[in-house]
């Protein structure tokens, strides 16, 4: 299968990037750990590391340096083709607007063709639950921002540290904006249910 040229973060490019960036050959266990630490919010499936390491090796992007007694101990290293592929993705520009495949938008779209009050009430509850999930993620990201800011006040960090703080601030804002969007949409639907909003 030809490599994906999408600028979006796929599990494939995340796994490849972790091996490329690693200090020497990486075990499957190491890759899985970093994927969870750095891209936990992407919620890739658990078996994704194994599958992608295998496929990337078959495709000539990685090579198996040593097979471990257990799969998690197997060591992988990037081939030149893999490094090139990752670097291309890293610097790729995104000339087109990203594809909008938002599940909420899709649900609203389906409901606009045939909707009952019960459907809206159900959606309101789903939105409330989703808002709470996003709020928890916001709290975690804000915790990281807070800790990093405190450390930077103690002693100025390296360029990497500064970039890490920017990334954490960006992640916190992403979750905060998600909370805000879900809340606004929920309130609109609640007003629709209560009759406060005119049904044109």
């Amino acid at each position: 299968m030809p490599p994906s040229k999408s600028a979006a973060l796929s599990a494939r490019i995340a796994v490849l990037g972790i091996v490329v960036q690693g200090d020497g050959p990486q075990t499957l266990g190491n890759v899985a750990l970093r994927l969870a630490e750095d891209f936990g919010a992407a919620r890739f499936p658990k078996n994704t590391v194994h599958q992608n390491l295998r496929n990337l090796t078959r495709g000539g992007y990685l090579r198996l340096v040593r097979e471990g007694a257990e799969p998690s101990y197997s060591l992988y290293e990037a081939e030149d083709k893999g490094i090139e592929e990752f670097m291309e993705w890293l610097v790729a520009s995104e000339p087109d607007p990203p594809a909008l495949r938002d599940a909420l938008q899709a649900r609203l779209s389906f409901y606009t063709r045939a909707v009952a009050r019960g459907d809206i009430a159900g959606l309101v509850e789903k939105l409330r639950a989703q808002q709470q999930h996003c709020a928890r993620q916001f709290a975690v990201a804000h915790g990281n921002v807070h800790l990093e800011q405190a450390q930077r006040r103690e002693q100025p960090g390296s360029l990497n540290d500064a970039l890490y703080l920017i990334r954490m601030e960006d992640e916190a804002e992403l979750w905060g904006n998600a909370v805000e969007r879900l809340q606004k949409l929920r309130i609109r639907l609640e007003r629709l249910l209560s009759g406060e909003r005119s049904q044109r």
Partner: protein
Amino acid sequence: MSELLAVRNVGKSYWRGVREVSVLVDVSVQVDPGHVVAVIGSRGEGKTTLLKLAAGLDPVDRGEVWLGDRELSALTERARRRLLGHEIRWLDRREPSLRVPIRDLVAAPLAMGRRRGLREARSLALGALDRLGIGAVAEQRWGDISNWERVLAALAGATVGSPKLLVIDDLLDGLGASRTEEAGRALRSLVQEMGFGVLMSVSDWDAALVADRILNFDGGRLTLMSDQTSQGTSATDAEVLPFERRRDGSRSMNAC
């Protein structure tokens, strides 16, 4: 740590004709010395109403507001006004009514409220402006300085008298990313140095990130979004979560 400000189960309604509109329903907020608490919400959700109740500018319909061991609603109007000038300072982006140089604008509350000599008040005002890096605008007037300098001048004016509590309404919003960050740093540094508590309203998430505790307005109620003070870890809707840190040492780009 002892509570500096405790807003307990307050409610506030307004009358629109014959209809009573609830703005705040059973809202509680606590601010401790040395902590920044941000209340985030869209315009018209009740942030400013809450801040006015917390500062003692407006009376509550239900509930209590305490500053240390004093209940604000039990104080006379005069005592509340005096608190507002000294221990509590209100800060927003409204243009000041005094048409005097920035130095005197910052010095005015000291000279008037605390009966300090004008010379001493001016000297303290200059120190406050210098500390925020805008000593150069001391002789200029409000209309002649930039929006950013106005934010810093307002901060200088609010902190020059060493208040216990700053109540900040929408000061950090719409400044742009780098200015918001800079204003947040300046505020944190003042909090660290002077030890006052801050209750502030914001509309932007990036402005909220400077806070130790963040609360979100949702239909007139306040929801705890995150608590990074020593009392809390991270929390939402009263569910306390374990603090999670996702950082390792292997993120250097040099390895590429």
